[in-house]
């Protein structure tokens, strides 16, 4: 009795919680999942469209078989029961029937796989692309580099734009919660875009469901895939291969725009990059480096080492008070450039020499750190990279 009462109040509590939570109205968002969507998101490429139809076909065939088979079973359950006075038959073999229900399913499964074959072949055909983009998965962001076309040379990092306080429940959640990034990938509509994917640290996986694309990004190897979006719009996905603690927080957003808009975007982006490009031979003051370094640190390093430099005991070492950070600068430059133990990623080629110099200078002068060699110039990083 007592237990039953407790159970009741527990169930009441749970249902109240459910009611309270669902009062917050969530909108459908462009290019992401609809609220309570029960099937694939609406396709915008031919491949995704084929997959959508394949799935519908499979669902229908499976449902028909399911209803037929379990129709028989439930008929039997209701008719052939002892309480209904049914006497058991004794048959226990029939070679004809057995051959029949081996051959027929065999034909059905082959018939199911045949139409999929065409799609498999089409999905693997990455030839004759109009545009190639290199995608690099990193803990926990995506790097994009345009290898050819109007935007050749454009490269940027793309990471979660949702503020931390929304995740930690100290602020109301935005509409695009967890499906928004600071820099979107921009591609032209109706153009075959080839992606070549790799990763820096562990395996990640890049997907946009509406394109019918999902490809693992594998460290040390290159894989490719392609899509040809047929509708202008913004499309959203998330990293789908477990990649460590921030796995839930590395979304993918692709903006499909008209040709003209793509050219304009590419042009603007190239100019912006040219303006931003730091001359690695420039000599900086310590305050300039610290200021720049704080930004670099917070976007790239704080996920593991934390903004307070204390790290996560047991997983990620503290920089505050670290002998490497407070010791000779050559060691720290080496660790940042080349990584360590497979855990600390190599930043050479990911961040510019100026950014690396700034981040190192920042760590050497922050929290309780007062390193003797307290400033690192970009030129030293360039020298050490050689």
């Amino acid at each position, binding site marked *: 009795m007592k237990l039953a009462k407790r159970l009741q109040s527990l169930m009441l509590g749970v249902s109240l919680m459910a009611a309270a939570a669902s009062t917050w109205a969530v909108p459908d968002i462009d290019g992401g999942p609809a609220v309570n969507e029960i099937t694939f998101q609406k396709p915008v490429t031919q491949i995704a469209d084929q997959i959508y139809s394949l799935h519908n076909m499979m669902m229908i065939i499976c449902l028909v078989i399911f209803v037929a088979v379990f129709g028989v079973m439930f008929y039997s359950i209701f008719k052939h029961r002892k309480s209904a006075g049914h006497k058991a038959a004794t048959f226990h073999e029939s070679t004809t029937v057995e051959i029949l229900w081996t051959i027929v399913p065999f034909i059905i499964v082959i018939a199911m796989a045949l139409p*999929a074959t065409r799609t498999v072949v089409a999905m693997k055909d990455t030839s004759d692309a109009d545009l190639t983009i290199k995608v690099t998965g990193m803990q926990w962001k995506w790097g994009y580099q345009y290898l050819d076309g109007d935007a050749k040379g454009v490269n940027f990092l793309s990471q979660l734009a949702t503020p931390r306080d929304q995740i930690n429940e100290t602020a109301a959640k935005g509409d695009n919660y967890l499906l928004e990034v600071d820099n979107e990938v921009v591609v032209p509509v109706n153009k075959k875009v080839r992606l070549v994917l790799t990763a820096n640290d562990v395996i990640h996986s890049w997907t946009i469901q509406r394109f019918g694309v999902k490809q693992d990004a594998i460290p040390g190897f290159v894989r490719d895939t392609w899509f040809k979006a047929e509708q202008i719009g913004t499309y959203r996905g998330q990293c789908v291969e477990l990649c*460590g603690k921030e796995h839930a927080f590395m979304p993918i957003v692709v903006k499909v725009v008209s040709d003209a808009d793509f050219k304009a975007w590419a042009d603007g982006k190239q100019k912006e990059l040219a303006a931003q490009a730091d001359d690695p031979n420039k000599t900086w003051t310590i305050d300039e480096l610290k200021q720049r370094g704080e930004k670099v640190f917070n976007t790239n390093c704080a996920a593991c080492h934390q903004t307070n430099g204390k790290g996560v005991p047991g997983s990620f070492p503290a920089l505050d008070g670290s002998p490497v950070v407070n010791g000779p600068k050559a060691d720290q430059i080496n660790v940042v450039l080349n990584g360590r133990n497979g855990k600390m990623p190599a930043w050479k080629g990911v961040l510019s020499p100026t950014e690396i110099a700034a981040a190192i200078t920042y760590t050497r002068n922050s929290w309780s750190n007062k390193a003797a060699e307290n400033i690192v110039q970009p030129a030293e990083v360039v020298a050490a990279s050689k």
Partner: protein
Amino acid sequence: MSSTTVDHAHDHSHGHGHDDHHGAPHGWRRWLFATNHKDIGTLYLWFSFTMFLMGGVLALMIRTELFQPGLQFFNPEFFNQLTTMHGLMMVFGAIMPAFVGFANWMIPLQIGASDMAFARMNNFSFWLLPPAAILLAGSFFVPGGAPAAGWTIYAPLSTQMGMGMDMGIFALHIMGASSIMGSINIITTILNMRAPGMTLMKMPMFCWTWLITAYLLIAVMPVLAGAITMTLTDRHFGTTFFNAAGGGDPVMFQHIFWFFGHPEVYIMILPAFGIVSHVVPTFARKPLFGYASMVYATSSIAILSFIVWAHHMFTTGMPVTAQLFFMYATMLIAVPTGVKVFNWIATMWRGSMTFETPMLFAVGFIFVFTMGGFTGLILAVTPIDIQMQDTYYVVAHFHYVLVAGSLFAMFSGFYYWAPKWTGHMYNETSGKIHFWASIITFNITFFPMHFLGLAGMPRRIADYPAQFTDFNQIATIGAFGFGLSQVYFLFFVIIPTIRGGKQAEAKPWDGAEGLEWTVPSPAPFHTFEEPPEVK
């Protein structure tokens, strides 16, 4: 005693003065030094039930965090530990040892053997498990926490972990050794110790499915050991098996892992097929339809299971021919699996059925497991799989086959054989409550996950876009219901059945067949000291 094909009846209940030292030992010595297959079976079953409850608590913690978008209870590092450890504990701690427990109890009784072939090795293979479980559970308390790379421990994420991963690897090594020894024991027992007259094709289905499972285990557990040993040396001894910088390949880990992993899923379901193949004929009061084809279907599934592993890896990028090969091979598995389902239904057809709890769980198994089978067929189609890889659709699929499949079959087996084990009948009303509560809450938990996966929700994420909220809330509510149903099972079924209840007859089910029903309930400490004659 009921009618029986055996003439020895229960000669052992008169004591056996000729071997005094074989009397049942008492106290802790009985369990620590156990060499009796029934005691070891009991140990296995209690061990696996304990792990099942622990893994279940982890699952409820996962569902609690996922009740709402945002991070409320656990940080993402810990969340990843929860998903990983839930998987490892359920697969290696709960399902596999539970089936070995069933095998220990039932195989000697079903083939008329006095015990398992290697009684002391049997003891050792059980007592390896608690240290492994302690390593596994203890990893939560070391710096860096438990393994957090998913139960598949894909490199190179697994090379990044703290020492918890090493403990996990050692635990897997030990459990693997235990499984291999268990399998050797089972194979030897089945092949050499069958009662006179029991040819292989007269053997009960549960023994057949376990024989095939044991071969699968011996074939693939060393493969897993290889994969995790390479992970271990990559982590500590500077090898680069899975590190491209040193000439290795991270995807090779996946190939090796799934070469183990896919037969592994059949290791977890074939004995379940065996149990259901006993329960359905018993309660339909009609012999199993197509016994021979059941044996061939089981063998075909086992053989095919070695050539489908890469369907877990369609998104890693492989040549188009490989994708097509693995798609077609995977689709083929549906054929023998279908044969089994048809055979069970043909067994029920024109029977004289009653629906005691074992039958309810068996029918529930057939119904819900088949849904998991169909989603498996859908996932086998490469383009669809690519769309669903690593989403909740996959989570729904394998919980339909592992919970509604393996677990429900084990519940069915428990209710079916508990009278033989305990000597008491369980309470039928309690059993029925357990069944209906389990099957309803199971579907509330896992059915919405199909929708989440189709809409694109990745698995193993601690936080999700708000569009997925409602289905996650339904799943969480269902999960707590399912968890409570299993607590009910412990306190209102298992314990009362052990403590007392209606005295069970030697053959409590009028439609049951087999040697296990020729010995009294509870089965005496020693059975079949004189082998029975099977006609």
